[in-house]
């Protein structure tokens, strides 16, 4: 069942609709939100696959899917929202009497506090990310994260200056919540979308809501200390030699920064240790000190 959980009339062009797909009823309640950032679209595909599975097998309990939280941003192909360039994910828990984006955030938050809550993203438009669960270094969501069977589970410390995002607000409200990301922004990666949809079906299975698909072991479960961030020393044109998922050994050539004019090699990027590539830069123009790759060290 599709329902409007919030609408706003906007000038010139009609109605903004925040829509929710609901399957089943009662508890437990799983809520999955996608498209908070309007140019991260693998979640839209993943949730459509999941909706198809839920139509074939009704859940025991309630599953709420909100695939396009930032519908206007999605229409405009932009990460941010249409209302004063605000980032919806920096607006939670919102305010019913605040700005348009704060009102959307408030309505979304009120409509999405389930027993278990998942926020789906893609990587930025610059990078490809291994499908993964990112969850707080503290908390008891780890078993749920493992149950999804995505390749990577990253227990991540909050960064300095990070403001409250939807997952933080869910957790503050007593929900079990985490973020899932994978692939690249502004790009549909069907395999990533299917992997995430399968992970969500395993999650429902572990919650006793549906018959679970076959389990899949997590490839790597890491904390910040096991994630090596590789940045370039000089700006230029980055040519990767590896892809997400590749196993590399110490010294392996991961990519080159070359001169955009002429192609002379300016810098070789090599693996500092044995590991798995979990993030890879795809947009080739890079500034000095930009992220090129992440490796997880096992």
């Amino acid at each position, binding site marked *: 069942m599709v329902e409007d959980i919030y609408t706003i009339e906007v000038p010139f062009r009609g109605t903004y609709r925040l829509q929710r797909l609901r399957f089943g009823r009662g508890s437990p309640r799983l809520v999955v939100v996608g498209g908070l950032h309007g140019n991260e679209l693998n979640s839209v595909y993943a949730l459509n696959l999941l909706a198809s599975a839920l139509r074939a097998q009704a859940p025991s309990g309630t599953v709420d899917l909100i695939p396009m939280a930032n519908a206007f941003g999605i229409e405009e192909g932009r990460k941010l929202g249409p209302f004063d360039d605000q980032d919806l994910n920096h607006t939670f828990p919102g305010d019913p*009497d605040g700005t*348009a984006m704060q*009102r959307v955030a408030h309505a979304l938050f009120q409509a999405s506090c389930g027993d278990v809550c998942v926020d789906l993203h893609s990587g930025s438009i610059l990078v490809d990310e291994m499908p993964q669960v990112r969850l707080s270094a503290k908390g008891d969501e780890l078993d749920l994260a493992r149950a999804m069977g995505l390749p990577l589970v990253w227990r991540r410390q909050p960064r300095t200056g990070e*403001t409250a995002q939807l997952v933080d607000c869910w957790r503050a409200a007593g929900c079990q919540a985490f973020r899932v990301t994978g692939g690249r922004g502004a790009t549909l990666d069907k395999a990533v979308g299917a992997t995430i949809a399968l992970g969500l079906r395993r999650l429902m299975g572990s919650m006793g809501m549906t018959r679970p698909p076959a389990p899949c072991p997590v490839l790597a479960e890491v904390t910040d200390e096991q994630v090596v961030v590789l940045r370039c020393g000089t*700006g230029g044109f980055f040519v990767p030699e590896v892809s997400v998922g590749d196993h590399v050994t110490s010294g392996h050539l991961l990519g080159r920064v070359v001169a955009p004019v002429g192609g002379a090699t300016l810098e070789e990027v090599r693996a500092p240790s044995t590991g798995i590539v979990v993030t890879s830069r795809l947009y080739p123009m890079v*500034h000095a*000190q930009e992220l090129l790759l992440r490796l997880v060290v096992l």
Partner: protein
Amino acid sequence: MIESQAAICRIELPTHNEVQVVRRRFQGTEGPTVALVAGIRGDTPEGVRVLYEVTRLLRQLPSIAGCVDIYPCANPLASYAEVQRWPFFDVDLNRRFPGREHGHPPDRVAFELVRHVHEADVVIEVRGAYRAFRELCQAHVRQGGEVAAALAGQANVEVVWVRTPGSMAPTTFAAQFDNVLVLEGGAGNRLSEGVSEELTVGVMNVLASLGVVSEQAVPVHWAAIQRPRVVTDEEVLRVRTELGGVFMPSVEAGAIVARSDQLGTVVDPVHARVLQRVEAPVAGMVLAIREQPSVHPGSLVARVVADS
């Protein structure tokens, strides 16, 4: 007095062109260090113009007591493009502080700016209004910042707003320092007649009150300096629309209004209907009025300072 220029951060672009964030230093005799910063967002050029004028005035002086560090444009790429956010990364530099030493260019600029400005005893950020608005010249200081509040009283503005930090405040430039005031006025993304003159006088008068320059260096007589009204968050009322449409203002910034006076209307331009009459919630003075017309439910269209 010695004038010098240094790059506090060099951004090498992927094409190997280089962009510098520059500090201009006027080093005089013994005295306090004052940092003046503009252009953190690229669509507030009024601050850049004020620091240009202040630089020209300082150059005419034989000496100063202390040091004035001028950062004329913290976000040169956005300023060139006349957009709020740092291009390429599409990030708001004023949400990246305190930055990271080894991050991407916006984070490195934020880090270097904080590292250098921390040497200062007093920090003044000068900027134009948010792009949708026209604003009276005003100073913002943090609640509890007595030194900054006293200096803001000398800044030739009409209102000093003592603000309680909001949820996003920790990532702003101003939040990184103790004695900091933010001077703001005019309209977003343009230069307005009279605004830079007012704020230039304000900056020079603050420097005079700190003893860095003499009273004679201030372009107007001390008796002509505006005596601002000091207000707190409770006295500044935000007026929001309840419906989306096109906002047509009925008053200008600085207007004196009675309670329920019309501040503007929200109209449906396609069907030529008035959707909402926006009224003053209290009697007072219009501190800011929206000039960009597209509004949504909850869009801020005016700030009114309530009569005391």
